[in-house]
């Protein structure tokens, strides 16, 4: 039994089947982007175990295709099993071995990237300094103790926790947070907005729940109704929403707190100040020829104080993070938007590229040399009669010219 399983998993047939599935998956995953947007299509097709099919208006769904995780995993198992079974390291197979070794490395590296990579944005106006970047999709509820003028004490609760938990306690907070209502996407309530209204009596801001959006240029704007309580009673009740610009401020136990719902922040032990943002176009056109942000990087932990020019294709790499010129604000030409990426597995593709490139080269050269030698041996003895060389025979086929 184990033998048969091993045989199956190491078979070339399985490789072909899996690759064919991968072909279909990549194709449908690409087409799906038109409707779902890049992000959701990625989640559903490539960062999933199965791709499901759900007909309109029903609650059940059936898996129709293995998703990216499953296919990648199976391919990995297939590759490893095949190597164990078939490939002894020999001079002849060194190319094949390198290619597949590189592929294993690439698959693993991409797996780690998918799991550990964090992408966020840094939006800066000229003259502004920041020590954090923000996630464009994830949010958090932050409760900030601002009593100390030198130092804020921040407790941030991720949206995922807010969404599924009713009571949240934190060692640094003297109260309990009760989530009374939570809308993943919301709109300020009004006569034109359909959807469930938040049951927040007396709050100045009222929000209604609206369907989730998925495309690249639309965003979900969450709102939550939060109640803070202690054992001795209720501290207060607030509607926190990404629609709001200001935090709710309240006093408790002689200390002052701010409460707000905001994009998830990633704090850094250094600051970045935008000195100058440029958005140039080609003369006489509206086509951008250059975006660049001149920033000042200040990192006391590493003793770095320097100006950096971030441009298209020329990012800043600092402390394991990459800052690249991602976008600009069409309404304000003094604002730059940098994308910040932290990827601990960033080196893996480079290693696997070298391995696979070498492998392909070796393999290709070996074929070429073998082919050339074979032809030399074929042609040499017949040189005296050109009519019978392979070439003429090939062309003539069965007929005589």
């Amino acid at each position, binding site marked *: 039994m184990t033998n048969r399983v091993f045989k199956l998993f190491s078979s070339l047939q399985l490789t072909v089947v899996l690759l064919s599935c991968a072909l279909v998956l990549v*194709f449908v995953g690409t087409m799906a982007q038109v409707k779902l947007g890049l992000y959701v299509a990625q989640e559903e097709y490539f960062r999933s175990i199965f791709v499901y099919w759900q007909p309109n208006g029903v609650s059940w769904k059936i898996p129709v295709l293995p998703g990216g995780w499953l296919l990648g995993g199976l391919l990995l198992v297939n590759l490893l099993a095949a190597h164990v079974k078939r490939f002894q390291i020999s001079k002849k197979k060194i190319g094949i071995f390198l290619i597949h070794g590189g592929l294993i490395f690439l698959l693993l590296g991409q797996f780690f990237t998918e799991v550990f990579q964090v992408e966020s944005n840094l939006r800066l106006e000229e003259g502004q300094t920041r020590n954090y970047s923000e996630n464009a999709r994830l949010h958090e509820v932050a409760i900030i103790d601002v009593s100390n003028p030198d130092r804020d004490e921040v407790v941030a609760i991720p949206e995922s926790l807010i969404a599924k938990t009713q009571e949240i306690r934190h060692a640094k907070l003297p109260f309990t947070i009760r989530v009374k209502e939570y809308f993943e996407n919301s709109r300020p309530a009004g006569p034109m907005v359909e959807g469930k209204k938040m049951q927040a009596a007396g709050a100045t801001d009222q929000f209604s729940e609206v369907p989730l959006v998925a495309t690249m240029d639309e965003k979900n704007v969450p709102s939550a109704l939060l109640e803070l309580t202690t054992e001795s009673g209720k501290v207060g009740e607030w509607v926190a929403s990404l629609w709001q610009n200001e935090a709710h401020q309240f006093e408790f136990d002689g200390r002052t707190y701010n409460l707000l719902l905001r994009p998830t922040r990633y704090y850094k032990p250094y600051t970045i100040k935008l000195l100058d943002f440029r958005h140039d176009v080609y003369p006489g056109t509206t086509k951008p020829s250059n975006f660049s942000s001149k920033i000042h990087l200040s990192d006391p932990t590493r003793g770095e104080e320097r100006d950096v020019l971030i441009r298209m294709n020329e990012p800043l790499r600092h402390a394991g993070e990459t800052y690249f010129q991602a976008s600009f604000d069409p309404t304000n030409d003094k604002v730059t938007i940098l994308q910040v990426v932290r990827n601990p597995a960033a080196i893996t593709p480079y290693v696997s590229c070298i391995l696979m490139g070498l492998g392909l080269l070796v393999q290709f050269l070996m074929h070429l040399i073998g082919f050339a030698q074979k032809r030399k041996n074929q042609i040499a003895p017949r040189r005296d009669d050109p009519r019978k060389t392979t070439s003429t025979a090939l062309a003539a086929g069965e007929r005589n010219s």
Partner: protein
Amino acid sequence: MKKWFPKILVGVFALWILVGIRAPKPKDDFNLAGFGRLPVLLNGRVQPMDSVARNALLNMSGKSVVRTDEGTISATEWLIEAMSNSEKADTRKVFRAQHPDLEALLGTEVAQLEYYSFNQVTNHLEEIEKQARNVAKSEDGKKDVARLRTPFQKDLMHFYDSLILYHRIKSSLGPVDTKDFVHELSRYKETIAPGLGALQASEAGEEFEQTDLQVIAAFFRRYQEVARFAYPLAVPPMPNQARDQWINVGDSLMQSMRTDSIHPAVTHLAQITTAYAKKQPAEFNKAVANYRIWLQSSQLAPELKKGTEEFFFNQLQPFYKAMVIYVAALLLGCAFWLNLSEWVRRSAFALLGLAFVIHTVGLIFRMYLEGRPPVTNLYSSAIFVGWGAVILGMILEKIFKGGIGLVAAAFVGFVTQIIAHHLSMSGDTMEMLQAVLDTNIWLATHVVIITAGYSAMFLAGLLAIIYVIRGFFTKTLAPETAKALARMVYGITCFATLFSFVGTILGGIWADQSWGRFWGWDPKENGALLIVIWCAIVLHARWGGLIKERGLMTMTIFGNIITSFSWFGVNMLGIGLHSYGFMDKASFWLITFIISQLAIMGLAMLPPRFWASFKNQGPTNPPSSPKGKAPQPAAA
């Protein structure tokens, strides 16, 4: 004769190319070439008048010359006619209406009159504008509208845009209704000082001459209109200004009100158009020469050189000439299959070589003009795909003889030039690059290698098609030929795998270097990945003995579909970083191509007894290598 035939043939075609290099003769004594070489700035780059003319004409009428009753006239001649407001310009049939409803709208009396002159449509301008406004109104605020238009709306909007472009061209070097612009300028110059004096006086509440103010106000309105519509930026920067500070003639004339002087370039250009309008060739030639001298002395020698060089490139038409010679080589190659005379094959190969040389010259010339690696947009990718496939095909022909590599190379060369020609109609083929693509190192590596991968995929696919067509319909696919074809297809597929894979990985590294992520599932990235996966499937299926000769061919033909999807299909989705080359008409051709490939695959999958070449060989002897045995040494 047979020995000399290839040489004579190449000589004839080479002569044809050389004739094209000569500068065109002055027409009616007007040095039109001199005018065509003059530099202007358009689309963010310095280019000769000739390029402005060609691209505008291609866009409007789909052709780069104008047909008239007295014969064809060049793009440059049409441009100077329009720019100097010669009455002839309005009689040139350059507006194209293809949709019957649009023709009905234009009140065509003669059925199927495809091209219109401006004079023929003047009575319908209001109606066209009204209709175009309706379309624009219905699309207000919607995204991606161009794709949702009906064929009539598309044709209407194209017609409307062509009319606007024509008006802009007519406004380029002065107001559209001026007959003697030199004279007008001298009058303008005289009125600036008194006019401005009157203006200041009126603002200060002092007494002033009413007519002075009225005259300058009239000029102001007149030149404001020019500033709004003028097409290329024709006025170069002065030596103390930045190199890219070109402005249009209207803006320059408006500035004159402040400086109380007329820019020398405006004066020179006015002399040129006025001389042309007055039909004075000697004056015209002198004005062109004087302007060149002025440009030379105003530190604009590089721009002047650029204009001259690009004019020469336009004149040479290397890709068009290569296309014609590829067709000749293709026909000779097919003739060889019929009569099998070695001298025919030699002639075809010699022609292929000549076409390749002129193709290469064009490619390198373009790189020089742009200062870029060969592939910068879809147009140039088509040129390059052809070029790569021709090299590979020539190598195959050298190795295998038999005419197969030759025919395949000539065919891909020809078809890719046709594709390129159609892509060129959407505008300037040497357009400036989006900021994100402005990196020569990655364009030279990632883009070139990926495109070479397309070349190999299409060449392999075409070889497989030759296998199927010859095998199914003719008896010429002998077992040795079939085997040779299988080896070619296998070898080229390996090559395609190598290039597609390395190119895809380099793309990932570019992304990682520039955006901090190796892979983002962008449609174009996925398209490249599809090619790599497909190659891996084909090769593994072959090595595992899951497919044999016909299977290999069928799968390789499917590779054509995947490659065309990756090359064009993903751009049509209109999403992601790579959607720079969105096209519309091309979807029809892409779908047609895919259906044709599926049909050939269907043929390929029919059992051998239906194949003309195989049915007499008996059921026990289908052309295939023994099960599991790889066709190449050292394969797993």
